């Protein structure tokens, strides 16, 4: 096990190295565009001297040396956790990202919580009442949420809440809890209610979509486990239905589901670009779109690297947790 973890960590470092190299290459496909964007502010100050502006920008970005030199410099910076400065206000990219991490993390975790609250009971009911009408209804609902993109659901939720439950209407709490709020962020320890109001709508919409995936997976796992011999033994012993389903079947069905949840956690973190933008939650995802609008390349590059790092290590943790929960799995 220890050997496996060490090998995986080494492999992950290799993967991250490849990721960093690809990002480096992306930014050099069309470096003129990068230079022009960086120099854009300068054009207005010094009218006429365009080339000088570009040279300054190029030197700032380290684009004036040879490609191997640039690569070396880029990698040394990365190892020292220096992701460069933003184009817009020249602040360190890493600090800017970390400053926006807490809304994103909170939204991601809440989404998983919502997904579990929805998926666990529905998945179990739909499995133990297989092919009865309730199973069909629940499966159709889950296919609906799987098939319909998150941002479409979000747009409709916002449309309905703001149109029919807007300010001054009979049910202001609906738009309070489901609708978007203005920009600005309140930490949970400052004002828990206001904080939750800001993320609840997005968490609910995203949680339903994630929950649909978990529900489908849990249902098929439950069906498989319910056919196992030891479950039949449990029934034969005369145990109550609840004990058989929860203690014998669910416990074992949940193990593979946990890996799916772990993998979803990764996609939730990166997928929240859409929800954060629609709900104007000032997290990393929102930062991505606003940086893209201004062609702020260091920010985009930095966020891609940070999220890639997160994804790789979440996957590692999921694999380790999997082996720990299910002793039948042996890593070689």
């Amino acid at each position, binding site marked *: 096990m220890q050997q496996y973890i060490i090998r995986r960590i080494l*492999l992950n470092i*290799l*993967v*991250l190295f*490849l*990721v960093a190299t*690809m*990002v480096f290459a*992306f*930014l050099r*496909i*069309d470096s003129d*565009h*990068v230079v022009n964007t960086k120099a854009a502010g300068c054009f207005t100050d010094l009218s006429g001297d365009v080339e000088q502006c570009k040279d300054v920008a190029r030197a700032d970005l380290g684009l004036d040396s040879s490609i191997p030199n640039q690569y070396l410099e880029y990698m040394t910076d990365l190892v020292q956790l220096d992701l460069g400065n933003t184009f817009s206000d020249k602040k360190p990219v890493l600090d800017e990202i970390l400053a926006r991490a807490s809304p994103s993390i909170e939204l991601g975790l809440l989404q998983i919580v919502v997904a579990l609250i929805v998926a666990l009971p529905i998945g179990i009911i739909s499995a133990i009442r297989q092919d009865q009408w309730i199973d069909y209804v629940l499966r159709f609902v889950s*296919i609906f949420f*799987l*098939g*319909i*993109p998150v*941002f*479409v659901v979000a*747009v*409709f939720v*916002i*449309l309905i809440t*703001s*149109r029919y439950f*807007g300010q001054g209407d009979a049910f202001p709490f609906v738009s309070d809890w489901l609708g978007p709020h203005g920009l600005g962020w309140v930490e949970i320890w400052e004002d828990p209610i206001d904080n939750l109001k800001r993320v609840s709508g997005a968490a609910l919409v995203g949680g339903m979509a994630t929950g649909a*995936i978990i529900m*489908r*997976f849990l*249902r*098929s*796992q439950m069906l498989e486990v319910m056919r196992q011999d030891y479950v039949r033994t449990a029934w034969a012993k005369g145990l109550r239905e609840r004990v058989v389903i929860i203690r014998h079947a669910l416990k074992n069905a949940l193990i593979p589901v946990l890996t*799916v949840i772990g993998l979803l956690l990764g996609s939730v*973190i*990166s*997928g929240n*670009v*859409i929800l954060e*933008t*629609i709900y104007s939650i000032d997290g990393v995802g929102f930062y*991505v*779109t606003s940086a*893209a*609008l201004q*062609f702020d*390349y260091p920010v*985009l*590059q930095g*966020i*891609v690297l940070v*999220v*890639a790092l997160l*994804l*790789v290590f979440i996957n590692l943790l999921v694999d380790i947790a999997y082996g720990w929960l299910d002793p039948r799995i042996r890593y070689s």
Partner: protein
Amino acid sequence: MAREQAVPSAAAPAPEFALPRRAKVWENVFKFIRKKPLGALGFFLIFFLIAMTLGAPKAKFGVPELPDSPLGFELGRPFMAPYGEEENFKNDAGRLNTHAAPTADHWLGTDGSGRDNWARIIWGARRSLFIGIWALALATLAGASIGVISGYFRGWLDTGVQRIMDALQSFPPLLTLILILTIRPFTSEPSLVVAAFALGFVGIPQVQRIVRGVVLSTREQQYIDAARVIGATDARTMAFYILPNIMASIIVVFSTGLGVVILAEAALAFLVPQAVPPEGASWGLMLDQAENDGLSTHPWPGIASASAIALAVLGFNLAGDALRDVLDPRLRLG
């Protein structure tokens, strides 16, 4: 005597070892609709989407100055579209008929510039399908070739390829798309072709992973051993023995992938509108415009574009699920 009885006479009809009657096409279709109603709904939505894109060809075949048209010629107004793409409408007072609710003339109302929403949805279908098909063509072509080769040869080649694919998969897809399309390789203006290729590029590792998995199990089959015994080269084995046998999986990957790509393109246009060409109707851009105009006061462009995106994605998902059940139960997950 007994022997003579056993020999069927020439006049005896229908020997019992006759092949079962071949089902007619429409019988199969009905069987499919009965067995997989949701899948049939998916195919109906896809056919409707394709029908939306149809129109009379406008230019000569193979016109080089129209690189954005998938067939080498441009299609004229779609048969289903009642109005032109950019046609504005005026109301009785002579002003632009903006943000109208649905009427008999404008089935889904009009948008902020007085253009017909229903017509724009139909025009926009072309863009979605164009991007979807080109992106998936790249993703399946590259992903499947890499997957077949690395799954077939295994060993150090496979290990190396898998590490590169790991790296590609560690890129958060949406963020990578935003990064690529704001850098805009090879063009200074946003281009549909670049968008399609970027979307396809992001899909390569997913396709490769699935195909490689299927190849790993296929290559252990006896007919592959038999092919080697009769002296087939590696290239021949891959092309004529493995590829035909994994075609079902590739078709499934293609059909499910189309929905994913259409959704990704719409999401991208919605989030970062300047990453895609602004001219021409696009569902994602329509939704973005609708959100900027205020969904609560002018809901119709938003309802129209959001429903179009949702139905197209739903169609490809349902059809892909049904195809997978029918063609390749190996790929079934959850």
